[in-house]
């Protein structure tokens, strides 16, 4: 069994903290919550301190923040139906663009691997793809209406321009640009969860996706491309995603977030039972029937629901979590 060591407990936000995101260099992170502010944290000696508070961008709860891959831009999604783009071009962080279009709460925002595309999703059931046209210019490239309910999360594939979205309708959708007419379309709908899918995270290769749900399970999905050696049919020449593993019986409440570490392959979950759990793929696991073991449970990781967990992209084993208890915690996982 591994061990999770609490390194720092950080306070500053008032009330529930919905999300936290590491800067791609791993030496800073941003957090946001119901106090309608974004805080940017970085190291000062051995302590994490708030370097900047951005409080003039949104009029309602800020649900999620996401750094662009270059680390120059920060996007924030808010219940006020807008997505703000912040950058530091003039030395201080400023809101340089506000993306409007969603009818109500924006729940999630994600940058593609090159930073040239941005995806947002909302309770209005739609997923929007934005093209970064210039420094502060964003053009809507697609409005995707494949979900029948509130869309909770969007996440880009780490190596290709493929987008995944998770919804209150219990499904996950995969989207790709059609090379013939350059229209974005939904190429797969992943059904197996029996309630809201809260979180999704690709592995380092993008051939696998992990999802977590209100049904208290975690599922692992494997991509089978056309011409796959397993001879799994791929109708319309589209990659098929199959649920190859379900982790049930571990979580006692809704699982709100999941993160697949691109460095170590470990999977971490944030749960409504206040715990953080870490899963590791077994040594004798196989591609088509993988098995995972629970290697760590941190009960009472927070005093209330854990809302986000995210691995440091540079430092293996370093983890950030945010909670309804108003704290951010930094953890170190030791195998």
């Amino acid at each position: 069994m591994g061990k999770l060591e609490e390194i720092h407990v950080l306070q500053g936000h008032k009330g529930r903290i919905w999300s936290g995101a590491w800067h791609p260099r791993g030496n800073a992170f941003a957090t946001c919550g119901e106090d309608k502010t974004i805080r940017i944290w970085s190291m000062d000696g051995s302590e994490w301190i708030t370097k900047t508070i951005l409080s003039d961008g949104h009029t309602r709860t800020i649900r999620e923040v996401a750094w662009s891959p270059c680390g120059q831009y920060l996007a924030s999604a808010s219940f006020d139906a807008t997505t703000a783009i912040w950058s530091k071009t003039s030395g201080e962080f400023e809101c340089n663009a506000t993306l409007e279009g969603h009818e109500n709460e924006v729940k999630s925002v994600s940058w593609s691997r090159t930073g040239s595309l941005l995806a947002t999703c909302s309770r209005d059931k739609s997923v929007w793809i934005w093209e970064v046209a210039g420094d502060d210019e964003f053009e809507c490239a697609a409005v995707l209406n494949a979900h029948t309910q509130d869309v909770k999360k969007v996440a880009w594939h780490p190596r290709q321009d493929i987008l995944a979205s998770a919804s209150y309708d219990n499904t996950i959708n995969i989207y790709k640009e059609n090379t013939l007419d350059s229209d974005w379309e939904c190429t797969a709908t992943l059904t197996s969860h029996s309630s809201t899918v809260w979180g999704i995270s690709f592995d380092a290769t993008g051939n696998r996706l992990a999802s977590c749900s209100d049904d208290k399970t975690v599922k692992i999905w494997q991509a089978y491309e056309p011409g796959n050696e397993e001879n799994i049919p791929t109708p319309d020449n589209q990659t098929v995603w199959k649920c190859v593993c379900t982790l049930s019986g571990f979580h006692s409440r809704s699982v709100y977030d999941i993160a697949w570490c691109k460095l170590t392959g470990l999977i971490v979950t944030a749960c409504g039972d206040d715990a953080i759990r870490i899963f590791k793929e077994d040594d004798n696991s196989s591609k088509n029937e993988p098995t995972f073991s629970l290697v760590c449970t941190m009960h009472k990781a927070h005093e209330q629901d854990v809302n986000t967990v995210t691995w440091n992209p540079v430092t293996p084993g370093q983890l950030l979590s945010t909670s309804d208890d108003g704290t951010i915690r930094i953890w170190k996982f030791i195998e």
Partner: protein
Amino acid sequence: MPTEIENLNPSVYAKCKERSVTDEEQNEDVPDPFDQREVFDLIRVINDPEHPLTLEELHVVQQDLITVDDANNEVKVYFTPTIPHCSMATLIGLSIRVKLLRSLPPRFKVSVEITPGTHASEKAVNKQLADKERVAAALENAHLIEVINQCIASS
């Protein structure tokens, strides 16, 4: 608020007596865990959105449909709409949630659900009430929070 009242003539029930406070409960040195009656007292006085009556008088909430597990920080409340097509079910559920959110210590995990078999859209309403993100967003809606505050005002 709706202009037409859906259930014109609801059954009205008697209120229960005030809780008698024991000597042990007065003693500050004795641990006093939350119990069914205490949670019932918090929500029984909530006003119905349609009638000048409380949820207790309409039997929308009942003491024996509440479970409290103080040691494990769990509170579960079943509420019973007066008619199976009551469009106020989500609002009533939200009012109960908000009242408990404001009254109980944050350590409690509160679930509010419709009594099984008593509402046509039971599953949909339960799913919405259990979704903390949607509840949080709803509570930022100025009009809705005003209505909820009226329901729980005198309580």
